[in-house]
């Protein structure tokens, strides 16, 4: 299972790539494996606000439907609309092509409270 070293994680199995004032958000390799084939992703719109640990979208997979929680508070600047037509990229490349949203971070101190790769590894029992 892939847990890249340059990312931060949540216990709800999202990853964050924070870079200055912006962050890219997606779900982890573990999450996509647990969900199985993703068949539909409900996405928010650009300009909408997200709040830390509040749901901002839904992933429908063959096994279950699951909320996507925002690891950080902020404003959405970009949405991966490719997920609408090819939701399978979330399974194939969860840390790359399968990213979900980009946001402008409102509260940088929240980033420090996210899980480190080592913490996340422990959480998923790797």
């Amino acid at each position: 299972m892939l847990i890249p070293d340059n990312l931060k994680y949540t216990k709800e199995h999202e990853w964050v790539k924070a870079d200055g004032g912006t962050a890219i958000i997606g779900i982890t390799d573990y999450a996509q494996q647990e969900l199985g084939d993703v068949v539909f992703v409900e996405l928010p719109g650009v300009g909408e606000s997200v709040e830390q640990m509040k749901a901002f979208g839904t992933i429908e997979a063959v096994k279950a439907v699951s909320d996507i929680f925002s690891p950080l508070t902020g404003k959405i600047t970009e949405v991966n609309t490719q997920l609408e037509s090819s939701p399978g990229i979330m399974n194939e490349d969860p840390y790359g092509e399968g990213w979900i949203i980009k946001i402008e971070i409102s509260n940088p101190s929240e980033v420090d409270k996210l899980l480190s790769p080592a913490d996340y590894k422990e959480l998923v029992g790797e």
Partner: protein
Amino acid sequence: MPEKLIFEISKKGKAGATLPHSEVPSLNPSDYLEEHLLRKNEIGLPEVSEVEAMRHFVNLSTKNHHVDKGFYPLGSCTMKYNPKINEKIAMMDGFSGLHPLSPPDCSQGALQIMRELDQYLCEIGGMDAVTLQPAAGAHGELTGLLIIRAHHIKNGNPRKKVLIPDSSHGTNPASINFAGYEPIQIQSGEGGLVDLARLETALNPEVAAIMITNPNTLGLFEKDILKVSELAHRYGVQMYMDGANLNACMGIVRPGDVGFDVVHFNLHKTFSTPHGGGGPGSGPVGVKAHLKPYLPLPVIEEKEGKLSLNYDRPESIGKIQAFWGAFGVMVKAYTYIRMLGAEGLKKTSEDAVLNANYLYALIKEYYDLGYPGTPMHEFVVSGLRYRNKGVKTLDIAKRLLDFGYHAPTIYFPLIVSEALMIEPTETESKDSIEDYARVLIEIAREAETNPQKLHDAPFNTPVRRLDERKAATDLILTWKDLKKNAK
């Protein structure tokens, strides 16, 4: 090889019957009908001979798995054998030929069946009144919640939330939303049961109801149910029981006696009528006396020895179903109850619990129980220990098909990872349970020694491993869709 569609067998001009020459002259529709009423395209029905039609459908039916063909331990679905006498009675002319709009004077027999069935369900559920109308379990949930809503509105405040344990059926939160409430999930305690401390913090006067399945979806009996009822009722919170698992407790514990105010029954599960593609459901709802005024319209009443339909009930939630419900299913469930009697129903539940526990005991060295405890009529095990071999529960389920068995319910409940939910039901013999255990153990061994085989399974089915994403996203549901796609 996939079976051809009947449209693909079709040849122009073929027919299943030869009609005699008609003495009535044929007419030209356009002389009599307006332009917009005339069909412009071909009707597009398949044209085949009788023997082709017969073979086509018989061949299709042999590819199907059903409870008359083999063991079907699909957890939570209670796929018990459906005694054929149920069908025989339901097919009697007086029942099957009865028009739903026959006036009560001409349908006293049917009304009597319905009235007696609702009395039996009251007795089994410990309830004071029953509506037979809901079309299936989830419809029963919605009906029950709307009744609860009407009750709270009558008391001045509809309230806002409905509590559900995290092991609840997926239909529960959906029904809650439909009824205009917000579902609030309560995390299960360590033992897989409702956590009383968490429940207590979640309870307040804004909570309309709590929906509990008992035994729960882990197959465990909520042993603190009396305490749960007492806590809920302190706040006027109504206790709703999802009766999906009633097969574990008929004649042993009555929902009404442990504090439930509303319960729905799945006639198609507990009371043996074909379901899951085999026939329609039926989800009657039972209520305690204080909720009786809100039952859907109409209710059957007896006056001077005659049964009638009463619509004059101002507090009713209204009509929730065209006509009266799935009448054929009611006749079958009625027959089942009468054939078994009180003692037989109790024995049914005892045997269902015994069979599940026997099967679990046979396989427990190979599959881990999702939560500790003594299961009731079904149990949930996890295939997690085979994950390090790269084997998932899905692979185990697919491999089971090779042995002519239906797979159990998988990946539910969500709180057990790699879940397999197994419900053998009371109608299986000791031999068939032992053989299923033997197969589950053989597959567990294959997971250790030959995981690739499980990835490649199934081998013996009409089609091999299906692309589940494609099945969910690229929907081709009709012959027209297929033709359109081919273009």
